[in-house]
């Protein structure tokens, strides 16, 4: 099946939910409303034509300059029978970061959604056990958001000025440390 045929097939059911579509580097990418995620994933999983019964990957994104749709979710599905790959994206405002969990359809999503929650703070409605997974439990921020620098922001012993990065200002440095 070509990407166009797949798209047309999905459109028969979700015509108004598809906001945009594209084909970057050959993979069909559909941007949808986040409310439509669960029914759409269920459709492409159970549909007899597509049979996308394998979830390859999911991950979060943060676009600080897209006002009102700062946070994004990217899902990739694979129909192995016909080798169909579909990428589904949803965007959401950063002050209302929630989306339906797809753990009811794919158990593989469990840890991946936990990872996304851990790093981006996206809350998955219906997730059985939404806790941090790779970072420590008492961490109070979501480190992959773009406003956080590479070094741990809570540490005071690593001053960027000593590493020649942001805030490097020779004059200020001299005044403060040479007395």
């Amino acid at each position, binding site marked *: 099946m070509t990407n166009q045929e797949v798209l047309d097939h999905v459109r028969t059911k979700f015509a108004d939910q598809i906001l945009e579509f594209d084909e*970057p580097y050959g993979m069909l990418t559909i941007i949808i409303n986040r409310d439509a995620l669960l029914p759409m994933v269920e459709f492409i999983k159970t549909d007899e034509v597509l049979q996308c019964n394998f979830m390859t990957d999911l*991950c979060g*994104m943060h676009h600080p300059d897209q006002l009102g749709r700062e946070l994004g979710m990217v899902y990739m599905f694979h129909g192995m029978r016909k080798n169909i790959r579909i990428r589904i994206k949803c965007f959401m405002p950063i002050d209302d970061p929630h989306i339906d969990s797809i753990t009811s359809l794919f*158990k593989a999503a*469990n*840890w991946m959604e936990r990872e996304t929650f851990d790093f981006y703070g996206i809350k998955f409605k219906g997730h059985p056990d939404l806790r941090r*997974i790779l970072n420590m439990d008492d961490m109070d921020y979501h*480190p*992959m958001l773009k406003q956080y620098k590479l070094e741990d922001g809570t540490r005071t012993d690593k001053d960027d000025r000593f590493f020649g990065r942001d805030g490097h200002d020779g004059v200020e440095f001299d005044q403060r440390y040479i007395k």
Partner: protein
Amino acid sequence: MSTEPLEIDTLEGEFSTLNLGPTHPATHGIFQNILTMNGERIYHSEQTVGYIHRAFEKIAEHRPFNQITPLTDRLNYCSSPINNLGWHMTVEKLIGCTVPKRVDYMRVIIMELARIADHLVCNTVIAVDTGALTGFTYMFQEREKIYELYEEVCGARLTTNIGRIGGFERDFSPAFHQKLKKFLAEFPKKFQEFCDLTERNRVFMDRVINACPFDAERCLNYGFTGPNLRAAGVDYDVRVMNPYSSYQDFDFIIPVGISGDTYDRYIVRQKEIWESVKIINQAYNNLPEGDYHADVPEFYLPPKDDVYNNMEALIYHFKIVMGEMDVPKGEVYHSVEGGNGELGYYLVSDGGRKPFRLHFRRPCFIYYQAYPEMIKGCLLSDAVVTLSSLNVIAGELDA
């Protein structure tokens, strides 16, 4: 002796808690399993991961493309070259660079050597966990030879950082040719000894047959890929379904199992080692003539001699080392068949010098979450061999 998993409802009596990990000889890595046991039976288990989380995805957002290769080394450190070359291919896909056929074949040789090394670690360790230490020590001599081959190509052994975006830094050296020929001549005989030791060994078979089987439907639902999925009978292999690096040129089969138990996972890996030997032989005997790198001066570091004597090369050298290469905007997903399954790179570029977002699809992280369901109701000794046969690599698990 392995036994059928019991229905949990039939378990009665007192429960005890056992920590399998974080540093336990059976985990072969740093991750914790808290088991609730009834005698020898596992009633419930809970996992803690993240002990060696190093924030590679965050670091990658602050590094130019060629400096991300060393990060990929540390994902599945049993087969670093596959990770490195997979990343190079992802960037090549993004910048639209086609590499010469010779590079493809060279890559195939390196990647299949890495697959052999990866599977050797996994399978010999299953044998160790069932009490057969001898095979492990003998096969690690062969693994050492593979590491020597890496050394001839890139100078490193474990964290290889092999190749470059666009190809290899140098052609295969005469010593590499010599060592590879010797390896291809001797390895099958040595490996056959290991096969004879375990594959039809009654003690070994009793121990692993029917240990924690996992059927195809559940495997797919849990996102299994690679040998663990194929052991359940699904013939999904990225090398065949979405061929990269000219894999379509080679003649090999995808071994599959039936029940997805530990023995099937073991045998699938054993057979894959033979297929890898077959692929290396084909690639090496048909190694095309040509250049060992693509013509992408913006990304491929020029020879040192040119840097000193050629203005253009000096400029490119400076730009690459300082990470000032221009890349197109776009998002690309590329996957390779890693040692443990589909190793994917989802790269989003905003045209800057660094990736806007880079996500690694790490097969270990995805399938390890099925472990509690696999071992529920099983004996502790079965859980240990199952953990080995899943080949959970902590580096790939935690990224």
